[in-house]
C-alpha cells in the first residue's frame, strides 16, 4: 500500500502533485493504434491514406513523445475531398431539414458516447487542461449540434427564400481546432452545405470527429477532413465548387488568403486573432473580476492573451488580488485533473518568451507566479504592467498566457484605450452599475461583450469579431446566414480579370479615343461617377466606350481611377454614422422607396438590359427581383428593430430558447415596437449570463437602455410598462396579501401621475425633449449584498449616492444642469422618502406577494432606521398590517422601478424578485 502523498497530517505542505497514472492515456492511444499510428485523411466516410506523401509527427506537446505520424495532403487529395463533398451536397441539401436535424442529433449522441475519447485525445494532443475540454468544449459541441438541429428542422419555414451555398472549405488553426470546427460545421451542415476541412498536421481530433460522423451512415461525404500544410490553403480555396471559405487563424495568414481569393468565386469568412479585453471599473466586484481574468487568460478556456484595463482608483487593490490569485494557479500536464493551465507546445512557449523579453526591454514590469513545472514547454501565468503605451509590445497582440494591465481614469478614457487597437474580438466589462456597464458595452468596438463574465459561450448567441478580428459570425441566427444565399442566386463565378495588372490599376490614364456615334438611349443617362449623392466627373476626366450585345457603340461611361475609389470609400465612411443612426423604420422606408422607384422605371431598365443581350422576359424578371429584394431587406431592417432575441444560459443542457423567446415577445412586443432607437445598426452583441431564474428582469435591461437613449420615455409611459391600476383600499377593508399581486383591474385611462415632486415639468408622461440622456440616466440600484452586510450599507449608500457621480458623465455633469440632490436613488430609501411629497396622502407599501416580503421589509426598515425626511415617517407608521385610512396604496416596486418612477414618472408593472440587482440577472441577449 503506498502511503498517502500530497500533504502529511501536521506537516503544512499541501501540494497537489501531478497525477502520474497514465490511465487516461489509454483511450487515445488505443484509437491511434486502430490507425496503426498513422493518420491519413477522412474523406467520404473512409480513411484516405495515399502513398508517397510526406508525413509529420504528431507529438505530445509536453514530453515530445511521438504519438502518431500524419500524412500531408497534396493537391489531388484536396480535389478528391472536394469532389466527395460536392457529390454529397446533392443529396444532403435535397433532404428536408428534419432529416438533417435527425442526423445532427445522432451525431450529438455519438459524441456523447465517445466523449471520453474526444476529451482525452484533444487534451493529450493540444496540452490543454482536460477539465476545460471535458466540461467546456465537448459539452458545447453537443449543445451546438442540438441548437442547429432545431434550426435545421424549421428551416423550410424560418429560412424560406434561402438556399445553402454549396461546399464550404474550412481552414482551422492548430489550437482549439475541435471547437472552432464545431462552431462552423454545425450551421453549415444544418442548412444543407457540406464541408471540407483542412486542419494543420498533427490535429487528430477533427479527424476523429469526421470518423464519428462518417460512421453514422447515410451521408458519409458531408464532412471531410484532410490534414496538410498552410500552403494548401489557396489550393483548397480555388477548387471549383468551393462556394465559401471559412478561415480561422492568424491575422497575417488571413490577409494573405484575402489577397489570394480576391476576385475568385469563393466567398471568404475570416475569424482572426485571439486576444481579448477586460475592462475593470471601480464599481466592480474585484474578486470576481480577477476570476474573470483567470477565465480569460489562465484557464485554457480562451486561445489568447488578455489586455486588462483597470480603473486607476482600484488599480492597487486589483493588482494585489490578481497577484495573490496568480500564486494559486497551477500549471501542469493537461491530462492532470487538477491543473488550471496546461502547456501548448514549444512554438507557443517561444512566442510568449519573446514577447515578455521584449516587453521587459521596453520598460515593462513582469510578474510571474504559480505552481509551474520548470521544463521547457511550460510557461507561468504572466502579468505585464507599466508598459509604455506607445511601445511596440503595447500595440502587438498579447500572446497566451500573458495579461497586459494598464490603468485608465474615466470611462471615456477606457473606451478610447480599448478601441485604440486594430483588433476587435471579444471583451468583458466588469461593473455593478448597469448604466455604466451598458454604456461601456455599447461603446466597445468589438464583436462580443460580456458583462460581469468572461468567455461564456452559447450556441444561440452569435460570436464574431470586427475590425481586424474578422468579419464572420458563428452561432445563432447570424451564423446560419453565413452559409446561405438567397434562393435563385447563381453560383459565384470568378470575376478576376486575367489581363489586368492590379498593382497599376487605376493609376495610369487610359487612352480612350472617340469611337463613333453613340446609339444609346435618348436622352442619355447622366454622365459621371455617382459618389456621395451626386454625379461628379471622374478624376482622370476620361471616358470608356461601352458596346452593346451586337457590338455597336452604346455610349461612354466615366473612367474611374484609384482616386475616385478613395473618394467613394471616404463618402461611404462619412455616410455611415448617419445611416446607421436612422431608425429601422426610416431605413426600411428608404429601401422601399428605392424599390418603388425601380418599379416605376421598370420598362426603361428592362429595355436597357435587353440591349445588353438579355431576353426581355428575363430582363423584366431581373428588375422585378431587384425590387423584391429591396422590399424584403427593408422589411428585415424593420423586423430587426422589433425583435428582442434572448437566450438563457442554462448550464450544460441546450437552452430552451424558443419557449422563452416566444413568451417574452408575446409579453413585450408592443413595447419593443415602439422603441424607436434600437441599436440594430451596430453589430455589437451584449451578453448577460448567469443562472436562468428571473426572466423578467432582463427586460429591465432592455428598458433601461431605451430610457438611456431618451427617445423611449414618452412612449413607454403609455405602454405596457405602465403599472396596473393602483389598487385603492378603503379603511376597514380586509387586507389580503396575495390578492394584491394578482390585481388585474383595467388600466387607468391616463398615466397615473407619477411621484414627481420637485420637478413638475416631468410629472406627466410628456417629458420635455431637452431632457438629455445625461440627466435622464438613472443611477443603477445598489448591488445585492450578502444579507449580513445589508443593513449597514444604507447609511453609506445614502451618502454615496448623493455625492456619487458617474465617471462617464463626469464632464457633462459639470455643466450645471443637473443639480437635483436626490436624483440618485440607489436603494429604495430615497424614493420612499420622496413618495409622500408626491402624494400628500399617506403612501404605503402594499402587502406583498411572498417573494417580495423580504425586500419590502428592508425598504420599510431603511426608511425607518435611515431617518428619512420627516414626511417619510408615515411610511413606517403604516407598515403592512396596520390599518390604513382612505389611502391609495401601491405596490412597492423594486429599487430600479423606484428610480424610474422618480426620474421619469414611470410606473412599472408587477415584477418578481424586486430585490435583485439588475446586473445580477442572468441573461444573455442580443440586439
Amino acid at each position, binding site marked *: 500500500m503506498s*502511503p*498517502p502523498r500530497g500533504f502529511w497530517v501536521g506537516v503544512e505542505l499541501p501540494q497537489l502533485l501531478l497525477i502520474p497514472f497514465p490511465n487516461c492515456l489509454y483511450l487515445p492511444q488505443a484509437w491511434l493504434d486502430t490507425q496503426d499510428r498513422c493518420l491519413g485523411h477522412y474523406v467520404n466516410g473512409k480513411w484516405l491514406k495515399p502513398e508517397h506523401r510526406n508525413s509529420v509527427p504528431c507529438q505530445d506537446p509536453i514530453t515530445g513523445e511521438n504519438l502518431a505520424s500524419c500524412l500531408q495532403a497534396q493537391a489531388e487529395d484536396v480535389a478528391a475531398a472536394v469532389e466527395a463533398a460536392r457529390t454529397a451536397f446533392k443529396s444532403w441539401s435535397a433532404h428536408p431539414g428534419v432529416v438533417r436535424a435527425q442526423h445532427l442529433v445522432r451525431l450529438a449522441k455519438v459524441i456523447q458516447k465517445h466523449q471520453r475519447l474526444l476529451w482525452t485525445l484533444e487534451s493529450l494532443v493540444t496540452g490543454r487542461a482536460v477539465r476545460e475540454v471535458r466540461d467546456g468544449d465537448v459539452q458545447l459541441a453537443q449543445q451546438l449540434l442540438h441548437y442547429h438541429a432545431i434550426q435545421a428542422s424549421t428551416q423550410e419555414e424560418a429560412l424560406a427564400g434561402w438556399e445553402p451555398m454549396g461546399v464550404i472549405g474550412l481552414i482551422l488553426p492548430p489550437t482549439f481546432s475541435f471547437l472552432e470546427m464545431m462552431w462552423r460545421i454545425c450551421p453549415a451542415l444544418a442548412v444543407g452545405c457540406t464541408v471540407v476541412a483542412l486542419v494543420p498536421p498533427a490535429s487528430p481530433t477533427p479527424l476523429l470527429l469526421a470518423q464519428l460522423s462518417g460512421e453514422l451512415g447515410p451521408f458519409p461525404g458531408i464532412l471531410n477532413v484532410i490534414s496538410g500544410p498552410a500552403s494548401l490553403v489557396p489550393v483548397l480555396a480555388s477548387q471549383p465548387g468551393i462556394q465559401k471559405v471559412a478561415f480561422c487563424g492568424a491575422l497575417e495568414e488571413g490577409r494573405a488568403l484575402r489577397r489570394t481569393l480576391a476576385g475568385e468565386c469563393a466567398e471568404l469568412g475570416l475569424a482572426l486573432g485571439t486576444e481579448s479585453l477586460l475592462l475593470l471599473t471601480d464599481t466592480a466586484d474585484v*474578486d470576481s473580476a480577477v476570476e474573470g481574468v483567470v477565465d480569460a487568460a489562465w484557464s485554457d478556456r480562451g486561445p489568447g492573451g488578455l489586455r486588462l484595463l483597470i480603473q486607476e482608483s482600484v488599480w492597487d487593490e486589483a493588482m*494585489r488580488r490578481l497577484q495573490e490569485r496568480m500564486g494559486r494557479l497551477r500549471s501542469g500536464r493537461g491530462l492532470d485533473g487538477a491543473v488550471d493551465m496546461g502547456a501548448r507546445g514549444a512554438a507557443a512557449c517561444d512566442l510568449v518568451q519573446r514577447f515578455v523579453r521584449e516587453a521587459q526591454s521596453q520598460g515593462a514590469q513582469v510578474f510571474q507566479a504559480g505552481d509551474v513545472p520548470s521544463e521547457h514547454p511550460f510557461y507561468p501565468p504572466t502579468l505585464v504592467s507599466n508598459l509604455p503605451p506607445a511601445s511596440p509590445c503595447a500595440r502587438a497582440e498579447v500572446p497566451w498566457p500573458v495579461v497586459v494591465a494598464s490603468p485608465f481614469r474615466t470611462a471615456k478614457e477606457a473606451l478610447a484605450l480599448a478601441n485604440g487597437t486594430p483588433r476587435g474580438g471579444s471583451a468583458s466589462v466588469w461593473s455593478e452599475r448597469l448604466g455604466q456597464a451598458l454604456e461601456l458595452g455599447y461603446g466597445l468596438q468589438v464583436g462580443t461583450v460580456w458583462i460581469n463574465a468572461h468567455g461564456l459561450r452559447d450556441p444561440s448567441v452569435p460570436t464574431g469579431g470586427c475590425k481586424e478580428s474578422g468579419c464572420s459570425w458563428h452561432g445563432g441566427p447570424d451564423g446560419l446566414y453565413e452559409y446561405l444565399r438567397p434562393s435563385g442566386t447563381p453560383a459565384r463565378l470568378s470575376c478576376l480579370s486575367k489581363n489586368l495588372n492590379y498593382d497599376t490599376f487605376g493609376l495610369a490614364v487610359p487612352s480612350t479615343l472617340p469611337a463613333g456615334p453613340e446609339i444609346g438611349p435618348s436622352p442619355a443617362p447622366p454622365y459621371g461617377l455617382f459618389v456621395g449623392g451626386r454625379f461628379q466627373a471622374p478624376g482622370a476626366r476620361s471616358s470608356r466606350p461601352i458596346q452593346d450585345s451586337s457590338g455597336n457603340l452604346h455610349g461612354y461611361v466615366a473612367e474611374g481611377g484609384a482616386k475616385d475609389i478613395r473618394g467613394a470609400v471616404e463618402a461611404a465612411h462619412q455616410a455611415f454614422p448617419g445611416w446607421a443612426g436612422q431608425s429601422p423604420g426610416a431605413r426600411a422606408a428608404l429601401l422601399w422607396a428605392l424599390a418603388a422607384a425601380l418599379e416605376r422605371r421598370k420598362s426603361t431598365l428592362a429595355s436597357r438590359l435587353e440591349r445588353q443581350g438579355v431576353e426581355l422576359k428575363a430582363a423584366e424578371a431581373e428588375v422585378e427581383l431587384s425590387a423584391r429584394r429591396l422590399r424584403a431587406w427593408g422589411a428585415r431592417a424593420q423586423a430587426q428593430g422589433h425583435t428582442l432575441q434572448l437566450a438563457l444560459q442554462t448550464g450544460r443542457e441546450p437552452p430552451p430558447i424558443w419557449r422563452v423567446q416566444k413568451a417574452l415577445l408575446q409579453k413585450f412586443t408592443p413595447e419593443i415596437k415602439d422603441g424607436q432607437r434600437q441599436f440594430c445598426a451596430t453589430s455589437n452583441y451584449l451578453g448577460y449570463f448567469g*443562472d436562468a431564474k428571473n426572466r423578467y428582469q432582463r427586460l429591465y435591461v432592455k428598458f433601461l437602455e431605451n430610457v438611456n437613449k431618451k427617445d423611449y420615455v414618452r412612449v413607454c409611459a403609455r405602454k405596457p410598462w405602465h403599472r396596473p391600476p393602483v389598487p385603492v383600499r378603503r379603511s376597514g377593508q380586509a387586507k389580503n396579501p396575495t390578492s394584491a399581486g394578482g390585481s388585474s383591474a383595467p388600466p387607468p385611462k391616463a398615466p397615473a401621475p407619477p411621484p414627481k415632486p420637485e420637478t413638475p415639468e416631468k410629472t406627466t408622461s410628456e417629458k420635455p425633449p431637452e431632457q438629455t440622456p445625461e440627466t435622464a440616466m438613472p443611477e443603477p440600484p445598489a448591488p445585492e449584498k*450578502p444579507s*449580513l452586510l*445589508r443593513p449597514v450599507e*444604507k*447609511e453609506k449608500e445614502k451618502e454615496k449616492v448623493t455625492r456619487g457621480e458617474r465617471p462617464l458623465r463626469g464632464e457633462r455633469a459639470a455643466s450645471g444642469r443637473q443639480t437635483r440632490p436626490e436624483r440618485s436613488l440607489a436603494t429604495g430609501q430615497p424614493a420612499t422618502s420622496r413618495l409622500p411629497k408626491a402624494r400628500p396622502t399617506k403612501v404605503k407599501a402594499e402587502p406583498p406577494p411572498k417573494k417580495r416580503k423580504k425586500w419590502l421589509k428592508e425598504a420599510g426598515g431603511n426608511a425607518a432606521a435611515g431617518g428619512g425626511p420627516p414626511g417619510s415617517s408615515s411610511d413606517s407608521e403604516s407598515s403592512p398590517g396596520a390599518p390604513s385610512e382612505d389611502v391609495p396604496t401601491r405596490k412597492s416596486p423594486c429599487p430600479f422601478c423606484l428610480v424610474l418612477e422618480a426620474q421619469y414618472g414611470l410606473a412599472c408593472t408587477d415584477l418578481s424578485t424586486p430585490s435583485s440587482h439588475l446586473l445580477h440577472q442572468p441573461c444573455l441577449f442580443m440586439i
Partner: protein
Amino acid sequence: MSAHNRGTELDLSWISKIQVNHPAVLRRAEQIQARRTVKKEWQAAWLLKAVTFIDLTTLSGDDTSSNIQRLCYKAKYPIREDLLKALNMYDKGITTAAVCVYPARVCDTVKALKAAGCNIPVASVATGFPAGQTHLKTRLEEIRLAVEDGATEIDVVINRSLVLTGQWEGSDFIKTSTGKETVNATFPVAIVMLRAIRDFFWKTGNKIGFKPAGGIRSAKDSLAWLSLVKEELGDEWLKPELFRIGASTLLSDIERQIYHHVTGRYAAYHDLPMS
C-alpha cells in the same frame, strides 16, 4: 485556537465598498468543485487532513452520556486502526479537531475525553442555539457555565436582529450557519465569507477562522471545502486553528473512502465503528 481577534475600529466604509456579483460567485463556486480533483494516494492524504478539521458534532435532543462517550472515542480514533496502519499513518496522532455538543453535555464530554486520555478541545454551542433569541443575560450565563464545565470553544449564535440593524459583533471564527437551517453551508456563501476574511486579514493582520457547518456529508464535499479554502485563503488557513468542518455524518463517509482506498472494496456500514 489562534490568537484572539484583537478587534478594530468599526469602519463601515469597508462594508459599503464591498461589491459582490452573484452570478460570478456562483460560477466560481461551480468551478471550485471541478478544478481540483485529487485521486488515489493524494485523495487519501486529503481525506486524512479533512478528518483533522472535523468538529465531530452531536446536537440532538436525546443526547446522553453514553452516546457522548461513543462520540468522544470516535473523535480520538476517527479511522479504524488497521486502516491507518496500512497507510502508515498510525502514529501521526490523527484525531478530529474538536467535539461539539450542547452546553448541558459539556461535562460528560470532558469526562469522556479524559477517560479516553486525550486533549481534544470541547466545543459547545451556546447562547440559545440555534435561534439565539434569548435574553442577553441568560446567553452570557450560558457561555459562562459552559466554560466552567470545561468547554474551550464556544459556538455563539449571534443576535441576528442586531446584525440586521447594523450593530456588529466581533469573533475569532465565523460559521456559515448553525447547521440547523434548511439551507446551510453552500459554496457561494462561503466564497463571500472567505473573501471577507482575507480582506480583514489584509487590513488588520488578524486571521479569522472559518467553519462551514451543516449539510457536509460526503467525503467528496469535504475535499471541495478544503480546496475552496486553499484556493481562496491559502495553505496558512488549512489548519485546525483556522478551519473547521462542522459535521456529524461526514466522518463515517471519509472512513469508508479510506477503507476503499486501502482494501479496494467499499465497507458495509457495520464494518466501521459507529460514532
